[in-house]
């Protein structure tokens, strides 16, 4: 009997606790503005900047929670078209944005360009883009399906350099990881990635990077479960505060 009383009491306490948590997260429905959870699918290269933006956005809109899915833009586009529950899509290239069906107007919010990333101390003695044609150096570039790979191909095509990669990575962060672990002598990543990992990698700028500038479009999705939240998040990214965070991360204004 005693045991049962305890159990009932515990259940009641637990129920109260759950109710209390719930009331914290969901604001009264009378307040205007976004609420609930906003699901944002964003290009891997946006990981650092958007994580920060998400925190700022949550602080500016109490009661709203932002959930991110960072991956290669092509994988994200595929997931969205297969019915993944996304409210907002931020792509690293217009091409992958175009692949997505059922979206609002896409707005370009930043630009990014490629940079050579080498491990700290540059053990492979990489000096420029021509080293990517060196068979003896370990090289990683992104697979051509993802925006950083498409941009890399554009650069190599424009310069006539025949790259000899040892691995075609499935997103830019995977390529960057191979550099920060010292597994490759160089990888072609975005300027912003080098900045984000500056304790572990060094960046080498190269003039040919201007031949492949990536436009980053962002759009709300028509199947969004939280259209208000989606719009508010996109507005926040395009706002002055949003721009400040993105510029600090190394992105260029569109």
């Amino acid at each position, binding site marked *: 009997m005693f045991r049962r009383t305890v159990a009932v009491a515990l259940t009641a306490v637990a129920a109260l606790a759950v109710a209390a948590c719930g009331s914290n997260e969901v604001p009264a429905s009378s307040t205007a503005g976004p609420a609930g959870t906003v699901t944002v699918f964003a290009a891997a290269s946006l990981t650092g900047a958007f994580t920060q933006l998400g925190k700022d956005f949550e602080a500016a809109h109490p009661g709203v929670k932002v959930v991110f899915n960072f991956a*290669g833009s092509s994988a994200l586009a595929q997931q969205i078209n297969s019915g993944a529950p996304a409210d907002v899509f931020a792509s690293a290239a217009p091409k992958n944005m175009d692949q997505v069906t059922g979206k609002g107007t896409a707005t370009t919010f930043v630009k990014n360009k490629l940079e050579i990333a080498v491990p700290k101390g540059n053990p492979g003695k990489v000096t420029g883009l021509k080293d990517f044609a060196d068979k003896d150096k*370990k090289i990683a570039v992104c697979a051509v399906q993802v925006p950083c790979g498409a941009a890399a191909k554009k650069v190599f095509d424009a310069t006539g350099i025949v790259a000899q990669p*040892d691995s075609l990575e*499935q997103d830019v962060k995977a390529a960057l990881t*191979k550099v920060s672990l010292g*597994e490759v002598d160089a990888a072609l990543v975005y300027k912003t990635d080098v900045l984000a990992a500056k304790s572990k990698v060094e960046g080498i700028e190269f003039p040919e990077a201007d031949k492949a500038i990536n436009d980053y479009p962002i759009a709300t999705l028509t199947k969004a479960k939280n259209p208000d939240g989606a719009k508010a998040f996109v507005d926040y990214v395009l706002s002055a505060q949003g721009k400040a965070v993105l510029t600090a991360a190394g992105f260029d204004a569109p």
Partner: protein
Amino acid sequence: MSPRGSRRIGGRVPLILLLPALLGLAFLLVPLLGLLAQAPWSTLPSRLFSADVGQALKLSLLCASAATALCLFLGVPLAWLLARAELPGRGLIRALVTVPLVLPPVVGGVALLLVLGRRGLIGERLDLWFGFSLPFTTAGVIVAEAFVAMPFLVISVEGALRAADPRYEEAAATLGAGRWLTFRRVTLPSIAPGVVAGAVLCWARALGEFGATITFAGNLPGRTTTMPLAVYLALETDPDVAVVLSVVLLAVSVVVLACLRERWISGLR
């Protein structure tokens, strides 16, 4: 081997077991049927014989087979040690052997990078002394696959060893056979079905390996892009190709498992 395997329970199957059982069967089969239903059959042959698919398939078969050979070479003695030798903390060792079985393969890939990578504990020495590094090589794919697949072999062989009657080995010993001779001529033939079953499981697991491979060996067509990696990348640009690749992988797995199951694995029961 014994009639135990063909034992049947008389009477009707209770509905409370039958329904979830059928649901479970459907759950396992429907996705595979969906794959077959969606396959672009009319263009399948032309896609199938494209250079990319052939290359990935060849590499997959080669790497899975090499990984299985490596697992047999290392795994059978390990299983023998676990089953027969007087080991302190054998339970713990056995538990450790099965860790890669439950570990997410990507974690396995990261662990391999940290140990065998160019800056890894052992990899750094390999690179320094022999100018050889495993990541981004076909050998790296084999290592990654073997790491993930070996527990299947070890568990299977150890089970067979424990089930085998040790009296034959004792008899061989009393007749003057050394331990190695006994192992080779008495133990190994008696556990052969278990070894083959383990090798098949190990091979199938290696064939499907994705996470550890892409993490440790990267992705380069012809060198490290195995079928699962090709499927994943194709899905992002041309889902039809991904389906074709998947159908091929499915067919290979089913054919191999079916052939070997009838002939060997049934002997285990």
